[in-house]
């Protein structure tokens, strides 16, 4: 990690583990931060389940969950308890090891991707710590690529779930999903590449810092105004990557029962469910950091900028849920045609135009 000083502002903690004799306050803070992010991601999944059901109900003029807790807010808790006490079933013909491994891969990838996503500037926790702590689990100088790499690994969870279940519906769901994710990964990667051309860095923290300030004191310097097409491509490909409607082919109910997780029950099903929601949160967080200025915003100082970050992520997540309950599912050939013949050429053109623009204006 040495050498490229440009990507490592003010001596940021590297990713290399250096042994120390005592547990420094910094290391302790880092461990606490990791646990905090883990718990918060779990919570965000629970909140998203509730929000999803409530918004769906609103859009369909229903009430949604309202019995458990005030306004039904404890419904996710009830769901989790129900899932935990359900029987764990496994088809006789399933490959036992891979059948157990697949949900673990899905959930692990979902959690791991958030490790390199910064969610706030430096803070001393209101003076509790001597040196400011960055609100990011690991500051890697190739963070964008790490996000992309982990997204490409999460395909395995779904494909293996589909294959190891030894059921027609699961296999079809798994195959469809791998085809879909490979197709949309290209556009996803190209959209990321055009952002890092504009920001001239692979570190997400750097990219967010480049979006500080405003043009003419009015328009914030967010990359979404430089890269509007890139943002749209990223959002579309992000929906496809997380297998959400209108691109939820791996689990198209009418055709495939429940797709790759047809044969799963109890907690192993819950892990797929969790992975889906956490992936949504991660994609929204990455989109916020790359296009919407991360924790940069007016009125709030850097130490409490994470409030802006949360608001922006919440807005994007609402957009996700809104899309799901507004748009009908595409047909599978339409999805593939759209991915390869519309989104990918657009992304390539966007990347070339961005590169030309960066060369021209620098």
């Amino acid at each position, binding site marked *: 990690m040495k*050498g490229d000083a440009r990507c490592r502002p003010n001596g940021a903690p590297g990713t290399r583990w250096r042994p120390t004799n005592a547990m420094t306050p910094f290391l302790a803070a880092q461990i606490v931060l990791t646990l905090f992010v883990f718990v918060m991601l779990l919570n965000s999944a629970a909140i998203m389940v509730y929000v999803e059901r409530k918004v769906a109900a609103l859009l369909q003029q229903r009430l949604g969950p309202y019995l458990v807790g005030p306004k039904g807010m404890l419904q996710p808790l009830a769901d989790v308890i129900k899932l935990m006490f359900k029987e764990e079933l496994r088809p006789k013909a399933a490959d036992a090891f891979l059948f157990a491994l697949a949900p673990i891969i899905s959930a692990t990838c979902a959690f791991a991707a958030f490790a390199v996503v910064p969610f706030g500037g430096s803070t001393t926790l209101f003076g509790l710590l001597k040196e400011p702590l960055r609100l990011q689990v690991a500051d890697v100088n*190739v963070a964008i690529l790490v996000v992309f*790499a982990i997204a490409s690994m999460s395909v395995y969870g779904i494909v293996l779930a589909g294959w190891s279940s030894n059921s027609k519906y699961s296999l079809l769901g798994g195959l469809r999903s791998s085809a879909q994710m490979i197709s949309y990964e290209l556009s996803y990667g190209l959209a990321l590449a055009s952002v890092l051309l504009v920001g001239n860095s692979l570190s997400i923290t750097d990219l967010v810092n480049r979006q500080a300030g405003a043009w003419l004191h009015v328009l914030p310097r967010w990359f979404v105004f430089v890269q509007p097409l890139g943002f749209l491509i990223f959002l579309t490909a992000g929906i496809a990557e997380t297998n959400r409607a209108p691109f939820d082919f791996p689990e198209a109910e009418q055709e495939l029962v429940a797709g790759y997780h047809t044969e799963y029950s109890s907690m192993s099903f819950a892990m797929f469910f969790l992975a889906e929601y956490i992936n949504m949160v991660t994609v929204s967080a990455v989109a916020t950091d790359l296009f919407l200025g991360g924790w940069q915003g007016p009125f709030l100082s850097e130490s409490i900028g994470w409030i802006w970050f949360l608001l922006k992520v919440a807005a994007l997540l609402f957009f996700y849920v809104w899309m799901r309950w507004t748009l009908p599912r595409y047909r599978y050939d339409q999805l593939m045609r759209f991915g390869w013949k519309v989104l990918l050429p657009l992304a390539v053109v966007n990347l070339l135009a961005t590169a030309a623009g960066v060369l021209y204006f620098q």
Partner: protein
Amino acid sequence: MILFYSFAVIAVVASLLVIAQRNPIYSVLLLIASFGALSGLYVLLDAPFVAVIQIIVYAGAIMVLFLFVVMLLNAPHEETEYDEHTQMLRRSGAMRFGGFLAVVLVMELVWALSKGGQTGRFAGASVSSVALIGRALFTDYAFQFEVTSVLILVAMVGAVVLARRTS
């Protein structure tokens, strides 16, 4: 050092198990594990970019296609009992050719290990920085880079021609 040895052991054991598996799906997965361990070694070498590219390109993209093909070919188990026809095939050419390749590989390994100690230097550019890798690729190694691109293009055209329906 502990990290180095654990990654190295994972890489070697996983690679050995790849060829010891009867089920091709497991072979593919073990190969992915081996690539993951290799990428860990790259991180230890202070080359995070190479490590991440290893995951994206090999573990992410190429192995997904491998898995896809293995699943679609529907060959969950390797045939263990060979009939007369395959026995003939084995004796006549394939086995000799495989044996020849194995001998060549062992000779190469012995040659490479006997040169131990003289580790090659990365020509000029450090591999830790994306900017330096890019500069090296497009200046010192521009010719090799372009030749590789043309090679891949030819392979793509070839694949399209082979896959095209002739009707």
